[in-house]
């Protein structure tokens, strides 16, 4: 099975598939460096006539398009970028920390493992628009609406099942004899876990952290319904740009989209061998 080379036909199919996979990425990158004259040309322009970084500038300085005689965006994306960074980093740290403790508890002591899967599945399968409804009500009553604290709470809610089960699969992979040896040496169970288990799953911990980062950074709908004026994230800002300036400021929208996707693609390549594990709650290990 593994010792045959590609036939010429198969090679052609593979190249065609590669072109289809990469074309949309190529398009967004090209649009992000197009000058305003190229944005909405008919027929569409594939390669910018004069590549420029002005679209990226406009995100932080709405006046930057002035030299092309084009009005800028109504609001800069600075707040959204900072908001996304802050909320994502804090929520990822919380989700992974809580998930790590739960993972050790479930894997080594099978505690709380009976009802948990059903609750988690329910949480995962409930249409998010409807989960957002009670959140909006609860948050309105406790003053968390339109606040980063509220947004972070939601991010943790969404990603905790992923971090718990992904980390549990890494703890499961670790032979428990290693911890037992440490305990026989006179360390308490707690110390054995902190000084033996956790250091030994470093790689898994890193992969999980990156995976949760991807999920938080991508979250859109909850941020959309929970943010009014004080809170913004990149996905919400992108939707606002498209709504407010439909069909006009393609270049600026594309620049923000590129800014949103670059960190994820970099992180994604770093942990590509663990992506399947994360997506399938540890059911599939590579």
């Amino acid at each position, binding site marked *: *099975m*593994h010792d045959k*080379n590609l036939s010429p036909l*198969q*090679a052609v199919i*593979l190249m065609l*598939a*590669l072109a289809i996979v*990469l*074309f*949309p990425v190529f*398009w*967004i990158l090209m649009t992000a460096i197009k000058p305003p004259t190229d944005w909405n040309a008919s027929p*569409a322009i594939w390669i910018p006539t004069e590549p420029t970084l002005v679209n990226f500038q406009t995100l932080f300085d709405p006046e930057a398009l002035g030299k092309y005689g084009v009005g800028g965006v109504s609001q800069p994306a600075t707040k959204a970028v900072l908001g996304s960074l802050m909320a994502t980093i804090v929520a990822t740290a919380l989700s992974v920390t*809580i998930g790590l403790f739960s993972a050790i508890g479930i*894997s*080594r*002591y099978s505690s*709380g*493992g009976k009802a*948990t899967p059903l*609750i988690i599945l*329910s*949480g995962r*399968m*409930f*249409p998010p*628009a*409807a989960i*957002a*409804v*009670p959140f909006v*009500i*609860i948050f309105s009553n406790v003053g968390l609406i339109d606040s980063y604290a509220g947004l972070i*709470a939601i991010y*943790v*809610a969404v990603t*905790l099942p992923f971090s*718990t089960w992904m980390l549990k699969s890494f703890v499961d992979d670790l032979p*428990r004899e290693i*911890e*037992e040896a440490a*305990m026989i040496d006179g360390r*308490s*169970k707690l110390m054995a876990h902190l000084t033996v288990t956790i250091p030994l799953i470093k790689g898994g911990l890193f992969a999980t952290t990156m995976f949760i980062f991807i999920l938080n950074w991508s979250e*859109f*709908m909850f941020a959309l*319904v929970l943010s009014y004026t004080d809170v913004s994230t990149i*996905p919400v800002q992108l939707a606002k740009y*498209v709504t407010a300036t439909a069909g006009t400021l*393609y270049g600026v*929208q594309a620049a923000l*989209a590129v800014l*949103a*996707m670059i960190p994820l693609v970099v992180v994604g*390549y770093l942990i*590509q061998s663990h992506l399947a594990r994360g*997506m*399938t709650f*540890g059911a599939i290990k590579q």
Partner: protein
Amino acid sequence: MPTTKPLRNKPSGLSNSAIARMFTLPGQVVSVLVLVVPLMVALYMSFTDWSPTRGSLFDAGFVGFENYSELLVWDTRFLFAVLRTVLISVVCLSLEFVLGLGLAVLFLRRFRGKSLLFSAFLTPMMILPVVVGYIFWMLFQSNGPINQMIEFVFGAEATVEWFRSSTAAIIAVIVTEVWHWTPLFFLILLSGLNAVPENPVRAAVILGANPRQVFWRVIMPTLKPVIIVAFVIRSMEIIKLFDEVFMLTRGGPGSATETISLYIYKLAFNDFQLAYGAAAAFIVLVGSLLLVHLLLAPVRDQLLETER
């Protein structure tokens, strides 16, 4: 859940159950606060006629199963949203499976630059859904590159208004989804194929089985749990499909691309029918749980095996 044998008890120190509680308590507290409580609030709400103009949720009138019967019997828009989501699921999952399997089989061959190509093929699933929706919204513009390519291939002038025709808009949503998630099938199926033991395959070939028989009789049984996991994960995601459609069509034209999630979003945040939306969500939840239960039934034991 697998049964784990507790770690050897030491005479000194905390008992196993105390340690276990210490480790799982934070996660349980957070889960109750951010998952169980909102679910309970939503469940209560679905039996009332509450809307934001009516003051507190607990002053709202209790209407029993009225919301549910309305949805299940009279609400054709809900019915169509469900049917549409089922249609999109069936078409997308079939395409993603076939394309993903085809790619995975090609990756069993030897060729140069394989690891680079492998990364390249995973790229779509790393891009956030909102951006994927935005990219394809641009590609499908009437003066965009997709119409250009259609012109180039067919020689006729293509002025497809992708977002003005119901059929075209649904096709646009499906194309977007398939591009975004075929890599996940490819990844999962490739890891499954690589786990197929070599010896039975060789033996079957020596015994004169043709490639088709080898595939269906020898390889498929090993792949089955992997395929089912992929289908379950993807159907869960499609039930919640929102971001891409929101960016592409907002559910339009009319309600031609309104998925379940989009309908519930509009109910709650455009029409402020929160109680009614909550009821719709619970109908969907029960349906999805049943579906997943049925899908997982044949492989549950195998999956639990691999967990240990």
